[in-house]
Every structure is written in structure tokens, then in C-alpha cells.
């Protein structure tokens, strides 16, 4: 090979090195940068899709009512998370129509999914004749209004009937659990404080305990259990004649087991 041909070969190699240099210093970093920006964009889009989906899927059951049961006439809200997401309540509005600039109540209440309803007192005492608009805002930006619409102070339901539950002969030291739920109440809403879950610990032998609930006509299930061996369930239909204001008495005396072949007392 002559010297001239070798020199031609050197310039070709030099050209290739420069071309590779261009590729490495310009194209490859750009490709890497583009890949990383695409990933950032994809993450942002997926994040927003997730946010939008959660906003759509979020579901809250909201009831608002004036507290007739305890007689405080405060406006109460009953919140129940009905979706699979945890809901954080950031603001509760209880706005009287005669004072519309009343600021909302700032909160940070967290409602886990599939749990019992949470009953909250708003601290606003309903004035007779005043209309209150209630709404609740979640952290995801969803605004909920109660199913019953605005509340008019003093015109809430004073539930026409009474259901009294009495436990007698409670045994000292045992924990008694009372559950009262509405099975059906026809056209009426069940009382807002239903279902009721109440626990008592008997501190004396043969103690008794009594509790009354304002109710509308309907069918109610009342159960009492202790933490040992006692359980009773009663269905009360207050729509039947003569039982509009029923009293259910549970005798918590332990049931004695009847030996086989004998008649129960």
C-alpha cells in the first residue's frame, strides 16, 4: 500500500470518528432526554386520570337534620362513606338564608370506607322559621348536599310515636348491647339517629335500664345481647292497631336449659 492511500484512509477514519462524535454528543442525549420527558408526561397524565377517577368514584351519603331527639335543636349532619375510597371532609356549610355570608366550618374529618355513619353536631342551633342550606365539601373537590334538602328550623320531624326499650334483671358486671334498626318505615324516613347502637355495663345485680326513641310508623328490629350467653331479637310493627307507641321489655335473667324430655316452665 502506498503512503498516499494510507493518508486517505486516515481522513476517512477521522470522518467516521467525527460522525460518531456527533451521534454521541447530540443524538443520544436528546433521545435520553426525550425518553425521560415522555415518562414525566405519562406520569402526570396518569396522575390526573387517577385524580379524575377518584373524584367520580367518591360517594358520600349525607343527611342533615335538627336535633329533636336530644332537644338541643342543633343542626346535625350524618355522614357515611359509601365508596371504596377514604373521604376527607374539609368544609361543612350550614348557611342560614337570612345570613348567607356565614363562613363554612373548617374541618379535616376522615371517613374510612365501609364504616358506620358518623353523626356530627355542627354547633348551629336552628332558629324557628329560618331556612338553612347545608352542604359538605370533600378534599377532592366534590360538593354534597343532604338528601332531604334545606332544613327549616322548628319544622323538623318531631316523630309522632315512641318506642321504649327496657332491660330488666341485668346481671352485674355484664355488658349489654342494644341495637335498634328500622326495617321499613313506608313513605317516612327512619329517624336520623337510626340505627341505634347502645352499650351498658350493669354495675349492680338486677339493674334495669330504659330508653325511648321517637319513631315514625314502621317495622323495627330490636336486639339485646350480653357478652356472655344472652341474646333476644324482637320485631315491632308500629303500624298495627294498638301498638303505635310500643314498649319492649327484655328480661335479662339467664335462660335455664331445659333437660331433654321436659316441658319448659
Amino acid at each position, binding site marked *: 500500500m502506498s503512503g498516499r492511500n494510507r493518508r486517505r484512509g486516515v*481522513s476517512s477514519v477521522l470522518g467516521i470518528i467525527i460522525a460518531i462524535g456527533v451521534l454521541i454528543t447530540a443524538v443520544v442525549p436528546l433521545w435520553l432526554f426525550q425518553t425521560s420527558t415522555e415518562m414525566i408526561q405519562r406520569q402526570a397524565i396518569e396522575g390526573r386520570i387517577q385524580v379524575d377517577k377518584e373524584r367520580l368514584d367518591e360517594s358520600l351519603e349525607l343527611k342533615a337534620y335538627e336535633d329533636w331527639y336530644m332537644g338541643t335543636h342543633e343542626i346535625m349532619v350524618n355522614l357515611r362513606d359509601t365508596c371504596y375510597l377514604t373521604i376527607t371532609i374539609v368544609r361543612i356549610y350550614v348557611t342560614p338564608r337570612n345570613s348567607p355570608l356565614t363562613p363554612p366550618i373548617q374541618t379535616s374529618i376522615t371517613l374510612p370506607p365501609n364504616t358506620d355513619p358518623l353523626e356530627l353536631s355542627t354547633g348551629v342551633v336552628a332558629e324557628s322559621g329560618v331556612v338553612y342550606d347545608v352542604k359538605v365539601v370533600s378534599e377532592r373537590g366534590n360538593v354534597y348536599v343532604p338528601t332531604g334538602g334545606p332544613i327549616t328550623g322548628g319544622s323538623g320531624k318531631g316523630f309522632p310515636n315512641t318506642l321504649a326499650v327496657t332491660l330488666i334483671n341485668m346481671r352485674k358486671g355484664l355488658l349489654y348491647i342494644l341495637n335498634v334498626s328500622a326495617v321499613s318505615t313506608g313513605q317516612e324516613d327512619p329517624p336520623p339517629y337510626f340505627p341505634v347502637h347502645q352499650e351498658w355495663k350493669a354495675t349492680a345485680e338486677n339493674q334495669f335500664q330504659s330508653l325511648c326513641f321517637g319513631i315514625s310508623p314502621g317495622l323495627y328490629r330490636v336486639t339485646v345481647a350480653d357478652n356472655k350467653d344472652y341474646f333476644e331479637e324482637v320485631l315491632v310493627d308500629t303500624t298495627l292497631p294498638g301498638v303505635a307507641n310500643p314498649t319492649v321489655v327484655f328480661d335479662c335473667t339467664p335462660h335455664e336449659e331445659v333437660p331433654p324430655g321436659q316441658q319448659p316452665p
Partner: protein
Amino acid sequence: MGEVSVGTVIVAFTVIGIGIAAWALGLSRTSIAASDLTRETGKAVLQEASLFVFEDVKFYGNRVYVRLYNVGSTPLQIISVVLSTPTNPRTFDFQDWGTLDIQESRVFRLDGEREPGLTIRVYALATQLLDPNDLTLNIQWGVDDVWKE
């Protein structure tokens, strides 16, 4: 070593020159493309991050009280809150109403009354600050929403 011809020198310098030019051009294009990509990515990210809602609208006296809630993941600069009615249509009236931080909710007060066909338009900007000394270099994304009576 043998002598080098003029032609060989010219070819060698031409190849090196073209190479350097291509390199410089490549770097320049890379820089421009990277800048474009940065801007596009920034806009896309801001677009996905910008979200506000009308939390509450109240009318009292001759005023309208609009409570906005930033539920996105970037602060929003509110630059227009405009009341518009069929008899008095309005376009965006740009002014600085302040910045609504992430998860912040604030009331904006406007002159106006409740009437049929009332529309409240809000326009907000999300900004990614790239160069505080040259605001034109920053990335911005506008979002708007409308509340109707």
C-alpha cells in the same frame, strides 16, 4: 514521509470542517429540541396539575361571593373573574386576583346581582418558574371554568 498533495489537504480539511459544522449544528439542534421538549413537558404537566372548582356562590346585596377551591397539584394565579349576563356579555378582564395555593379555598367578591342567565367565568394560570429574571422564559398553562345560574 512522502510529500502531501494540496488535494489531500483540501479533502482532509473539508471533511474535518463538515464534521465540526455537523457537530455544532447537532448540538445546536439538540439544545433547541431539548428546550422545546422542556416547554412541552412543562405545559403537559401543568395542564394535568391544574384543577379548581366553584365551591360556593352566594348573592348578598349587590355583591356576588364566589368561593374557589384549588384541588389540583399546582398553585393557580387567578387572573380573571368575570360576571356575564345575556344583556351584558363580558369577556375576560385580566387582572391579578392573587394566587390560590394547592388545597386553598378563597372567596372572591364581585359586583353584581342574581339574575337569569348569569355566568361567572374564571381564568387561572399555572406557572412553572424557569427564569425569575426573564418571565417570558417561564412556562404557563391557562385553565378556565364557568359557573352558570
